[in-house]
């Protein structure tokens, strides 16, 4: 199972190590550093690296490499999933997951890691339970602790760990009982030169924030559950009920959690809400190129497209760009060659555009590769797949909770080739 964990920052320093079995020398990370050196960018470091006696499995998040050391045949996905869970937990505990934050809270980090694995076997990975065992640091609690001498380690058995609903802690009490659900859909798409869609798919999630007293039993039903043919559920969802009735029935964890994630890939169901018109031309033997892009709304069901952001990695040969936007602000970084244009809202009457010229390196032939345009946007109050929640009911408790559903569509990896 998982032997050890090393946290390594982008400059290659090991700033935390934790061993769950015997101690593995940190020199094992040399193999990782080699791979790190070979990779052009941090993102490109391969996630599985063999060494003579161990295997290093790593994830890269928040500019930190989380490197797990294993010695025997262990499912790599198991390890990688666990590492992501570690990162999520840190984020949950400290708000942000950064080197500074981890160093400041090193003892809590160490305690949490100790609770998460025993002999390399996962022990408690649900943040609900972890927080019962080790309370996250807050300024108030630190003050209180120093005065009263109490600790931030719970001395009760985390009851939830053994119940049939291990994800929920017991004895939850709220004065305001509320349950909010966010349906968030991200569109991943590749659009080709001519504007036709090469691939488009929707990654959807329903994130919930449930603060309900006691042991509520919820059901959530949809107007069009047929859309959901490829779903992954939180363990709390009763699968049988979904199979037979297409209703989500569950006892929710306390607080924030992801109820389900789904995937819609049938092309006809994925509407593309924006289009990009582009005219980017390099010419041989000329030190000037032309650049012109316009963004416009396409299938938005009458909603406004906002938070639009256009980024593009220009070829190396582009020295500088002189551009004028019709709205928003733009920056071209001549070192990284990254062009970004913060567009804001799209007004269908007056489409935003960015026009101008590029100065190219003189004397070289035109760049081989065409820049790809990356698009970010948001549409409030719309789930682009058309998914709609029908109703939410609560059983098992007597009070009336406050319920709310929000929809949002965002761009995921939305790329336009030129």
């Amino acid at each position, binding site marked *: 199972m998982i032997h050890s964990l090393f946290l390594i920052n982008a400059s290659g320093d090991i700033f935390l190590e934790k061993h769950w079995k015997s101690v593995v020398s940190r020199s094992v990370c040399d193999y990782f550093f080699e791979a790190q050196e070979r990779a052009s960018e941090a993102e490109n470091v391969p996630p599985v690296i063999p060494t003579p006696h161990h295997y290093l499995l790593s994830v890269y998040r928040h500019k930190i490499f989380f490197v797990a050391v294993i010695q025997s*045949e262990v499912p790599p996905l198991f390890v990688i999933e666990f590492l992501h869970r570690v990162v999520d937990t840190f984020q949950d505990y400290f708000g942000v997951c950064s080197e500074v934050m981890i160093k400041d809270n090193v003892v809590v980090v160490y305690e949490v890691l100790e609770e998460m694995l025993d002999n390399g076997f996962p022990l408690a990975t649900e943040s609900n339970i972890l927080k019962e065992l080790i309370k996250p640091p807050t300024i108030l609690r630190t003050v209180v602790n*120093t005065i009263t001498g109490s600790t931030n380690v719970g001395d009760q058995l985390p009851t939830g760990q053994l119940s049939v609903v291990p994800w929920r802690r017991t004895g939850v009490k709220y004065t305001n009982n509320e349950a909010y659900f966010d349906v968030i859909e991200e569109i991943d798409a590749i659009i080709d030169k001519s504007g036709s869609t090469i691939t488009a798919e929707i990654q959807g999630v329903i994130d919930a924030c449930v603060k309900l007293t006691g042991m509520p039993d919820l059901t959530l039903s949809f107007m069009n559950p047929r859309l959901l043919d490829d779903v992954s559920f939180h363990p709390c969802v009763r699968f049988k009920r979904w199979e037979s009735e297409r209703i989500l029935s569950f006892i929710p964890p306390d607080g924030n959690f992801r109820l389900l994630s789904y995937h819609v890939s049938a092309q006809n169901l994925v509407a593309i809400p924006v289009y990009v018109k582009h005219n980017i031309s390099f010419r041989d033997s000329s030190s000037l190129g032309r650049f012109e892009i316009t963004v416009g709304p396409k299938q938005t069901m009458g909603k406004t497209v906002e938070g639009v952001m256009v980024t593009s990695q220009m070829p190396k040969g582009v020295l500088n760009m002189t551009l004028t936007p019709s709205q928003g602000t733009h920056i071209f970084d001549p070192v990284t060659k990254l062009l970004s244009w913060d567009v804001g809202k799209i007004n269908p009457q007056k489409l935003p555009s960015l026009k101008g010229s590029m100065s190219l390196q003189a004397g070289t032939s035109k760049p081989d590769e065409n820049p790809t345009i990356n698009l970010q946007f948001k549409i409030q109050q719309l789930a682009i797949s058309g998914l709609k929640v029908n109703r939410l009911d609560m059983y098992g408790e007597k009070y009336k909770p406050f319920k709310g559903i929000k929809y949002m569509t965002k761009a995921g990896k939305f790329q336009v080739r030129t």
Partner: protein
Amino acid sequence: GEIFELKAELNSDKKEKKKEAVKKVIASMTVGKDVSALFPDVVNCMQTDNLELKKLVYLYLMNYAKSQPDMAIMAVNTFVKDCEDPNPLIRALAVRTMGCIRVDKITEYLCEPLRKCLKDEDPYVRKTAAVCVAKLHDINAQLVEDQGFLDTLKDLISDSNPMVVANAVAALSEIAESHPSSNLLDLNPQSINKLLTALNECTEWGQIFILDCLANYMPKDDREAQSICERVTPRLSHANSAVVLSAVKVLMKFMEMLSKDLDYYGTLLKKLAPPLVTLLSAEPELQYVALRNINLIVQKRPEILKHEMKVFFVKYNDPIYVKLEKLDIMIRLASQANIAQVLAELKEYATEVDVDFVRKAVRAIGRCAIKVEQSAERCVSTLLDLIQTKVNYVVQEAIVVIKDIFRKYPNKYESVIATLCENLDSLDEPEARAAMIWIVGEYAERIDNADELLESFLEGFHDESTQVQLQLLTAIVKLFLKKPTETQELVQQVLSLATQDSDNPDLRDRGYIYWRLLSTDPVAAKEVVLAEKPLISEETDLIEPTLLDELICYIGTLASVYHKPPSAFVEGSRGVVHKSLPPRTGSSESAESPDTAPSGVQAAEQPAVIPTQGDLLGDLLNLDLGPPVSGPPIATSSVQMGAVDLLGGGLDSLVRRSPALAAAAAAPAPSTAMPANLGAPLGSGLGDLFDLTGGVGTLSGSYVAPKTVWLPAMKAKGLEISGTFSRQVGSISMDLALTNKALQVMSDFAIQFNRNSFGLAPAAPLQVHAPLAPNQSVEISLPLNTVGSVMKMDPLNNLQVAVKNNIDVFYFSTLYPLHILFVEDGKMERQMFLATWKDIPNENEAQFQIKDCSLNADAVSSKLQGSNIFTIAKRNVEGQDMLYQSLKLTNGIWVLAELRIQPSNPSFTV
């Protein structure tokens, strides 16, 4: 300074100060500072009712107990006391921490508390104790067995609490990994049922353990397989990708048992696609592992994902390791239906920034052309477009793949050669240059200025890499055979460059072969060099079916990431049990009968892979591009040509040229060209080796047979020669005893060997210093080498010797034992051995029985090693010891052997 301050604080009376001090100590420890000097002070803080302080001290103990074992004993009492605590959390914590202290003295004290905790009333304590057994086993396996903890652990599989079941399974799996032979996890339908019930209720991690355990179960019939599948399918919707992949493994494996006619089979196939696609929207690291596994799945069951091509399209900001994997799968899924889309994408990728990715994309276009015949034309025109971009590395890759396309579709796309020739000057990579030269040589008759083109390469001949030199040599010989009149000078030039000015033995050998071929029999030369080459096939990059089946059983593991069986790389996997897919039992109305189904599948797939071996044989003779693999065709065709004499030498050097081709080629050469005779002497040679059992403790050196009389006196006017062959520290020698039985003095001895199969020749003249008086005898050791000329003999190890003295010249022949030719570096890499072993065609195998040998495996192995036969691996199957041996002959032929030793009757397979 700092340590001193901490020491003072640790011994402070104030609780609060103590705790802060322990926290500081832990903080220093986590960043790797050595705070072991504080051990006694920290342990003193352990006796406390403050849970946090206790936990912190435990953390410290786990880290440093090993370096201070005597001090650690001090903590034992507290642990034992804590194991009796009314609070289950404290009990569990104590047993958990104790297991983490890897000190023998402490483990002794651990047994009693652990036994109690395994039967604790609280499941939380039980599940913690289950893991503790695994920890203890890691420290002291014998102790765990003696104390009967394994049985208690097995009982926990039937525990009422699903978490306890999951942890017991996890612990047992880990223990079983270091004990492959033990039947710790032998499952029966009852325990399977328990596991399936626990599967629904335990945590995601527990589900992974249980699913992986289920995958090792062999259902007794298709009905049981189906019911397990039904209960596992819901796991495909789990949010944890590791759960999903483990479920996929179980399903892929058990599906093998279901009849394809079953409705359920089709439903299951359909259910597998969406979760696999979903894995691709996870984090890139997860995607990578998923893609490596999908690569196996699409090879085993392409139907699952055949409609999902688009999810494998590359996004420009995917990490490179994801991009390359996606590309691989795109090619595997390419078919006539989607080829247009795929090509458009590939062309797009070829203009990206990342050089490695662009190269692979260009190569992928070539692979598509070879895979989907209808698309070949489009692929070629796409490649031509890419060549027009003049991007250097794109052009080079394109030329390399176009060469492959020519080999798949000869005489179809030669019109593009002109375009290719335009780019000749920009080629600076050996592979691209070699490909281009091959094209020019192969189509010399259609390229007007082929001689000029090749001549231009010849100028810098010695600066080229070997690959290019070999290719150039062959290409010019081809050119000469096609246009003999104009190119005589060129061919002479290249032959002399290759044979005289080069110090590369491969190049020299090939040069000499061509030279001799051309000078002795140009017609034969033409037939050999311009022989029709087998077509290359699309499936060169497929994983071999039996390996694929094994890998399917390892879905989700490291083996699936490396596409190698665990035995090939996992450390300490002593005698890994090979897993195999269950045979399809099927219902009786199923089209395939139960027995033949798996083999039928294999037979259907086999031909797809085999051709690559045959086709590359052509390479050996005139191209050397791509990995050399071999097969019989040229050997036989040449035999028919009657060029046997030459072939003996030719094959020999061919084989020497590519040692990588190993036994797969080794055996073919002799067994087809020299029908059937390698086996016999080899067998007898080995027989000899085993005869040695009788004693003669010659373990230090190679076995030496007693001298036998080779030339009786009456045949040689009174000269009697007896002798034997031996091999010592890398050199072969012939030990001779010359006896003068005549009445006159003999002098002026000289010796010569006729050409023979292995090129044996005297390395020094025969030196008999003093004349040999009547009835006197002299012992001489004559060093031999193997650089003499080569001729196939029958039997293979026949050696004809001529001895001259002042009286006359005498001829005799003798058989030399093959083992003198076994070289010292005949130890093959284990992996290579495995790969090669699989590749040996049946016709190159031979079996022998060696009787009356009463040695055990180890003795055999060390004896053989004395004769340069190396043991690569050893395993025990059904009470018989199997030894896997390799040896290498002086001419580079490898021989691989499997030795099965039964108490009385060892049999031997080559």
